[in-house]
């Protein structure tokens, strides 16, 4: 286990270096000359050249890359053009807001996904099973940014049950209950696709285990069906389910949540990426992408470790 952990931690280095190189390349590819931005297009060639030299823009790309990396490592992530504030603290602030939404969506996905998967497996080939599979295919095909609109139209505009977006009400009390109310719709919409995927994986993993002989042995022993399913079949399917759930949560924070945050104006990482894309705020956008990548990589590591902890079969080697 320790060996595995050390090995995985070591492998983080090339992955993060590679990811940072990709982000750096994107900065280089971004249209527009920074000198134009700083001096305007009418500056004399000599002045431009002087400024180029001053900022080291004439150095070879790899020199510029390592200089940039050095700044990143020291916590200097540049300044957001739109908000005129350092990127790193801004990103951290947004990260926790996204985590809040991810928590809600993840909870929904796990409860609904595992529940539906187990029911489908127990009632294999029944109408319920087929219905669950059908719903899961449509959930996978449902764009979150569209479903969000439909939900807003139904539950906010038509029925007036839930707020249309944002994280807090402008007026009235500033309670946690208020935040919770704002979290329901985005949480469900963001959790739907992961729920569908988890349901499919849970169903397959359960069926795999339920085919084995020990299930018959347990029943022969006189165990109730409930205990057989929940205590044994589900327990054995758990590593697979946890693995997939972890990965799905990763996607949630760094992908699906983006569209949901935009639709519901949830002020997290995704909404911030959207604003930086629209406002052509490259330092902010790339900072957000880099930060998200680090989170993504660490989360994948965590999932791998967790998978080993709860799965004795893998733990052995």
């Amino acid at each position, binding site marked *: 286990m320790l060996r595995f952990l050390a090995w995985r931690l070591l492998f983080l280095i090339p992955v993060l270096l590679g990811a940072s190189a990709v982000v750096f390349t994107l900065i280089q590819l971004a249209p527009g000359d920074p000198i134009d931005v700083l001096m305007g297009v009418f500056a004399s060639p000599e002045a431009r050249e002087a400024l180029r030299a001053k900022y080291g823009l004439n150095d070879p790309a790899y020199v510029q890359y390592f200089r940039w990396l050095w700044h990143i490592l020291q916590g200097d992530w540049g300044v957001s053009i739109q908000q005129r504030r350092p990127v790193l603290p801004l990103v951290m602030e947004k990260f926790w807001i996204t985590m809040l939404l991810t928590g809600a969506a993840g909870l929904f996905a796990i409860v609904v996904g595992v529940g539906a998967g187990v029911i489908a497996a127990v009632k294999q080939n029944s109408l319920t099973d087929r219905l669950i599979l059908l719903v899961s295919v449509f959930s996978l095909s449902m764009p979150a940014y569209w479903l969000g609109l*439909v939900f*807003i139209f139904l539950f906010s*505009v038509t029925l007036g049950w839930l707020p249309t977006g944002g994280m807090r009400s402008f007026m009235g009390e500033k309670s946690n209950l208020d935040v919770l109310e704002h979290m329901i719709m985005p949480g469900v919409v963001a959790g739907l696709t992961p729920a569908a995927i988890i349901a499919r994986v849970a169903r397959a993993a359960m069926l795999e285990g339920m085919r084995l002989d020990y299930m018959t042995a347990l029943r022969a022993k006189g165990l109730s069906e409930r205990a057989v399913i929940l205590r044994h079949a589900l327990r054995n399917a758990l590593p697979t389910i946890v693995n997939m759930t972890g990965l799905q949560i990763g996607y949630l924070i760094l992908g699906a949540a983006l569209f949901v945050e935009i639709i519901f104006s949830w002020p997290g990482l995704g909404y911030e990426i959207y604003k930086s894309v629209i406002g052509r705020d490259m330092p902010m956008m790339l900072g957000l992408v880099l930060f998200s990548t680090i989170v993504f990589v660490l989360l994948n590591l965590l999932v791998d470790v967790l998978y080993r902890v709860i799965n004795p079969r893998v733990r052995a080697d």
Partner: protein
Amino acid sequence: MDRTDNEPIPVAAPTGGSQEGGWPRVLSGVRSHQGIAVGAAIVMAVVLVALLAPFISPYDPNEIHPIDRLKGIGTPGYLLGTDIQGRDMLSRLAWGSRTSLAIAVVPLAIAGLIGLLLGSFGAYGGGVSETLIMRGMDVVFGLPPILLAIAVAATLGPGLFNLLVSLTIVLIPPMTRVTAQVVAILREQTFVEAARASGARDLQIIFHHILPNSVAPVLAYATSLAGSMVVFGAGISFIGLGIQPPRADWGRMINDGREVLDLMPHVSTLPGIAIVVLAAGFNFLGDGLRDLLDPRMKV
């Protein structure tokens, strides 16, 4: 896009003999598999709409009718109503199917080809080349795919071509990885050994035995991603990157309708339904092909 990578990739067990076994079995399976039939029918229907767009559309998709703005479904002259600018919804939906299909098929086809080559050469050679290619892919994998595509699209600038490029880049690692998994199984098979024993060179083996046998499972995997690509590609256009106005695109159309959601919900709803239907079609098709080509996945 949610299930592009990291999901343990279900690899089809190679079909054994290099000549028979594969495609005939697939074809007979297609006839008996419900999901494939439903999925194929939906996708074919959308392809038909895309091909016949000039004949189906009553108007030019970009033609503005200032007097007939925001007409509801069933208005005489406008079967599916009009949008904020008074453009015919039916015509825009029909033409929009072309971009959605392009987004679903083109990046997967290109990334699939690159992945097939990289994956088969990498995995067949084993050793250093395999490690190099696969670890390189892991590094690109390190980036969350949706963000990578958005970052690339934002850097390259808007437009259909740049959208296709960014989606292709994101798809190369999963396609390479799935090919490598298939090839790793294939290279141990007896018919490859037999070919090697009879004096075939590595290149010959790769092109005559490894590649033809990897195509089917890789194709099945690619199909299972196509639905997510439809959803995700339209999403990029929805947030303002990708397809630019006035070109008709389902993702853009959803965004166009946001402002009038409470007045005229059909402007956003119709393109949304179109995306769900096409994506579900690809997902049914992909699931079915996966079942068919991978006996281990069948439960």
